[in-house]
């Protein structure tokens, strides 16, 4: 792997999965970078929505928070937070939501609440924020996370947001009609749910990544698709757009 970092590969793989007519509920960090790279490359008309209420934003730098002023300045319009969660998220108008977390299990359930016991936590994490309802109201969910045994666990300490539950038809049985996590984009691979069990399965390894790397960084026995592809390396254009975005962002945030 030379010429790009695993993080860059993860972000660019996420960007590629977005379509020009998608309406995305964007989180901070990797999702924000992925959505904006998509907008600046193959999906110029993609609609980006941040939970602060900004609809159709086109920031020139990545926001540090989900409510930076530039998101509002470049938005088609900005609505109140209750309206955002009622009319836009719960109303079923978001095609893709991005999630990540401190812990994920094989079915794409996520924990961003606590490590350890809820009442006596080892680490008190930020909590769910928008995630519990993003997970059930968006048409589909893309998850971006870096692989590690601490994060990719056999059993979550706390279920903050629902993926495919216990697998199979469990998500539907819980009264949720949306697709849930359809892509898990990591620094090492692309994972997709098995059509039957809904367990996340490696379908593509990033350039230079071997199966052992996956096994070593996941706290369960990972499954691989019958044919595992190789993720195309970032193009020069993709890398340039992403790096320019990060450079502009760094300059803007340190200058402020």
């Amino acid at each position, binding site marked *: 792997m030379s010429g790009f970092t695993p993080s860059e590969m993860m972000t660019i793989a996420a960007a590629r999965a977005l379509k020009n007519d998608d309406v995305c509920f964007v989180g*901070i*960090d990797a999702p924000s970078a992925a959505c904006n790279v998509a907008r600046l490359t193959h999906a110029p008309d993609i609609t980006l929505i941040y*939970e*602060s*209420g*900004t609809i159709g934003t086109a920031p020139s730098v990545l*926001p*540090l*928070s*989900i*409510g*930076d*002023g530039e*998101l*509002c300045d470049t938005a088609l319009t*900005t609505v*109140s*937070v*209750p309206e*955002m*969660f*009622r009319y836009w*998220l*719960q109303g079923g108008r978001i095609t893709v939501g991005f999630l990540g977390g401190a812990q994920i299990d094989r079915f794409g*359930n996520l924990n961003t*609440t606590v490590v350890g016991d*809820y*009442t006596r*936590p*080892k*680490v*008190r*994490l*930020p*909590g*769910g*924020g*928008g*995630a*519990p*309802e993003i997970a*059930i*109201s968006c048409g589909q969910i893309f998850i971006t996370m870096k692989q590690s045994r601490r994060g990719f666990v056999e059993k979550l300490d*706390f*279920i*903050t*947001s*629902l993926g495919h*539950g216990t697998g199979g038809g*469990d*998500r539907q049985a*819980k*009264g*949720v009609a949306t697709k849930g996590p359809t892509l898990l984009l990591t620094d090492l691979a692309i994972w997709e749910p098995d059509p039957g069990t809904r367990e996340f399965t490696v379908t593509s390894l990033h350039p230079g990544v071997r199966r052992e790397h996956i096994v070593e960084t996941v706290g369960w026995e990972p499954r691989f698709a019958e044919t595992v592809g190789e993720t195309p390396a970032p193009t020069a254009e993709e890398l340039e757009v992403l790096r320019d975005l990060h450079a502009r962002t760094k300059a803007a*945030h*340190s*200058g*402020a």
Partner: protein
Amino acid sequence: MAQFHTLHDAVAQNIFDGDTVAFEGFTHLIPHAAAHEVIRQGRRDLTVIRMTPDLIYDQLIGMGCVRKLVFSFAGNPGVGLLRRLRDAVEEGWPHPIELEEHSHAALANAYEAGAAGLPCAIFRGYRGVDLPSVNPNIKSVTCPFTGEELAAVPAIRPNVAVIHALRADRKGNVFLEGITGVQKEAVLASKRSIVTVEEIVDDFGARSPNATILPHWTIGAIAQVPGGAHPSYAQGYYGRDNGAYIAWDRIAAEREVFLSWMEENVMKVGPEIFEIRTARLRQDGGAK
């Protein structure tokens, strides 16, 4: 009926020990100056509500003002965790605090229900997750038409709402725009309110007929505190001080560093410091 006060008097006359207080502002317009005044006046046993606790609640918690926190996302946005909040929850310093944890959708709906005078809010949420098992204030109702089970949470009805707005006119009408978050709902849901503003104008002048304005008869106390949202921002006045958010992570990491920072930057100063802190940000971030 809106009354114009100094920030000192607005807090002294409206926030009392044991009160339930919502300081709102969603990234934009967070009422930092008012929270610092509450810390200076030594309020105790507060139940504080906020979707995104942020630095403002890290400070209130670290200074021992808080008995209970109602929240949905406790992070330093884009930076990391809230270390004073973690210290209280994990180590009980300076004393243990009670948590009532929700999702954003739940709290946004709960503020909306509070503004709408309803006892509870219903929404499609919390399916397949653990939060309802640790929060008894998450229940459900069944739609009488479709049989669908919907989540229900109690409406938020604080004793006091505290917000920072862009401007007030001389009658006490309050104007905000940009990312307006849940501030209008928080004020309308509360018995009393404190609004700090960037400026007081004769009248709002040309504006959208649908501008977000809280009429003077919905407002309690108004105090002019230019820069009062810093390190948050005020659209059209000054930009967000991202550097201060990043720096907070280090300040809040150690109890002693935190305490001496608070002594220097909160206890020993007054609200007028906020105008000075935002002077530089007015040039780059957000000249009107």
